[in-house]
């Protein structure tokens, strides 16, 4: 089934209803499907093998995504923040493409690759003006809908692919068609090249929840848009939430009483921040979503009631759930396995494996699925005795000290309890004696003195096994993150080596 059917259904059921608000312009579902059908003509005429987006979110990204689907060409939004050399290499991997967005940059980096380029406004206009053949037969949706290059925080970007069937399974399994009332509006501020941005468009359209697009996230703009459009729900990454709260603390005025729900994911949420947010937004339902590009977004959820229960509980076991990513979706299977592939029981840490119709696990070059269709996420974690999933970092980030596996998270959590420490990253550093040992990069909180290195070591020794005590402790002004708030551990290693 083609993902464009999600938009066709919304247009059939409520063609005159506003489905998208972007830069002050309102688009009905009828207008969006009309433009997507026009875009499909442009795409077919171009003979492009991919439809790429090199731009922020806008109506053009929605039209391009569904237009590509109708034309049966994979949609590949690119990270416009990449350095020229990296972006040029990715453009080379998808040539010839119809590229929507920054034409000058495509010309400069990939001028000879045979791309067809439409700047944003020209693409939207051309899609609206193209006359769709009323007898057009659109793609059946048996192939690839989306190709996303992974962020490459640990290695070179991989081309993850999602079949139409993966994304459709995810939407049908988690979203009730037309369930949103007319007042509901979802503020989308994640970049278009992130799986959360793709999933937000698909699920909001299928629920008939109006999408309010914020093309470039800024906390003031976010708060003002919530106020102006009476936004009822939003998805944020933890860094965004932190910056929103900071802006409110600084006195940015906005009426955000319409905001009934906030979902977050895409990176680790600091406990202190989520407690603060629960206090600051007492009427808002918070949902923590865990998912990957390769799984068509969410595979586990911690819902609003569980957030409130954990927030006010005195029971340490219930309270600890605020640090979990909740319960796996009923539509997927999830297991924790050890290095030999054996399934582990409750509270035993290992690698997270998932299986289900929404799970692609495919890359352009190879499939990562095992013979039984399970996808090894490379995320480390465990399930507690009640089935709550806890993450402990990327399996590739595990520090192997003399054969003992150490997850960076356990050390970072302890160090962050020190009042003078604002941020911490534990990574492997080379050790002649152990092969690898623990290196710790720290950021001191404003207004505090540097704690002595030994004070930090003593703190860790008092709470964890002696193998966790860092060999190297260094202080930095800040740690390196990408724009989605993901810690760049590769760079931390370089900083500690320098």
């Amino acid at each position, binding site marked *: 089934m083609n993902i464009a059917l999600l938009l066709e259904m919304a247009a059939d059921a409520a063609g005159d209803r506003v489905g998208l608000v972007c830069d002050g312009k309102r688009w009905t579902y009828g207008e969006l499907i009309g433009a997507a059908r026009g875009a499909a003509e442009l795409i077919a005429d171009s003979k492009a093998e991919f439809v790429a987006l090199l731009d922020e979110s806008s109506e053009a990204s929605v039209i391009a995504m569904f237009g590509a689907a109708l034309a049966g060409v994979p949609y590949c939004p690119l990270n416009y923040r990449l350095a020229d050399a990296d972006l040029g290499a990715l453009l080379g991997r998808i040539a010839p493409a119809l590229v929507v967005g920054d034409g000058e940059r495509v010309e400069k980096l990939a001028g000879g690759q045979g791309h067809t380029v439409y700047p944003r406004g020209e693409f939207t206009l051309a899609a609206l003006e193209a006359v769709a053949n009323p007898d057009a037969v659109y793609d059946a949706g048996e192939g690839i809908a989306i190709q996303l290059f992974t962020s490459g925080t640990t290695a070179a970007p991989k081309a993850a692919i999602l079949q139409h069937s993966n994304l459709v399974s995810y939407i049908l399994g988690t979203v009730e068609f037309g369930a949103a009332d007319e007042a509901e509006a979802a503020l989308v501020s994640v970049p278009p090249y992130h799986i959360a941005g793709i999933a937000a468009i698909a699920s909001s359209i299928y629920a008939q929840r109006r999408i309010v697009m914020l093309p470039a996230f800024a906390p003031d703009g976010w708060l003002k848009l919530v106020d102006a459009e009476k936004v009822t729900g939003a998805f944020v990454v933890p860094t965004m939430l932190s910056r929103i709260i900071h802006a409110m603390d600084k006195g940015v005025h906005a009426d955000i009483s319409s905001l009934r729900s906030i*979902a977050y994911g895409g990176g680790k949420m600091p406990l202190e921040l989520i407690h603060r947010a629960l206090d600051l937004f007492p009427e808002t339902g918070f949902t923590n979503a865990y998912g990957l590009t390769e799984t068509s977004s969410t595979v586990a959820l911690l*819902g609003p009631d569980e957030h409130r229960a954990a927030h006010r509980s005195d029971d340490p076991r219930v309270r600890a759930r605020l640090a979990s990513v909740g319960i796996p979706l009923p539509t997927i299977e999830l297991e924790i396995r050890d290095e030999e592939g054996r399934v582990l029981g409750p509270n035993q840490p290992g690698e997270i494996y998932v299986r289900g119709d929404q799970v692609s696990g495919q890359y352009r070059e190879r499939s990562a699925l095992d013979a039984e269709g399970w996808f090894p996420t490379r995320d480390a974690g465990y399930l507690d005795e009640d089935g709550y999933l806890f993450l402990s970092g990327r399996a590739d980030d595990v520090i192997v000290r003399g054969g003992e596996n150490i997850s960076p998270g356990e050390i970072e959590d302890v160090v962050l309890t020190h009042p003078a420490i604002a941020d911490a990253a534990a990574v492997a550093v080379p050790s002649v004696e152990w092969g690898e040992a623990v290196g710790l990069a720290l950021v001191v909180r404003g207004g505090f003195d540097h704690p002595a290195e030994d004070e930090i070591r003593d703190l860790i020794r008092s709470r964890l096994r002696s193998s966790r005590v860092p060999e190297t402790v260094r202080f930095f002004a800040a740690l390196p993150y990408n724009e989605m708030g993901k810690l760049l551990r590769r760079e931390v290693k370089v900083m500690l080596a320098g």
Partner: protein
Amino acid sequence: MKPGSRIKSNACDTEVVIIKYTAGTIQCGGADMSEAGGGGADLSADFAGGSIMGKRYVDEAGTIELLCVKPGKGTLALDGAALVLKEAKPLPASD
């Protein structure tokens, strides 16, 4: 009857997309469904419960799943046995 294909009722306006199919004849309103639809069959009084836009329909054994993409007056059925609504547990919006 491939997954992803769209079939239409010959007794009412209902259209469905096949999500899962194993075997048997898919019917609506008491008449067999087809790709062309619009066959002008009479709506059977025994199969006039209606179909609802955006709902998924399954049989008891789980051999078939249909997504209603256009509603109508007929009841969806497999080999004469009415299909039932697939109940989904509502989840909070996560993206």
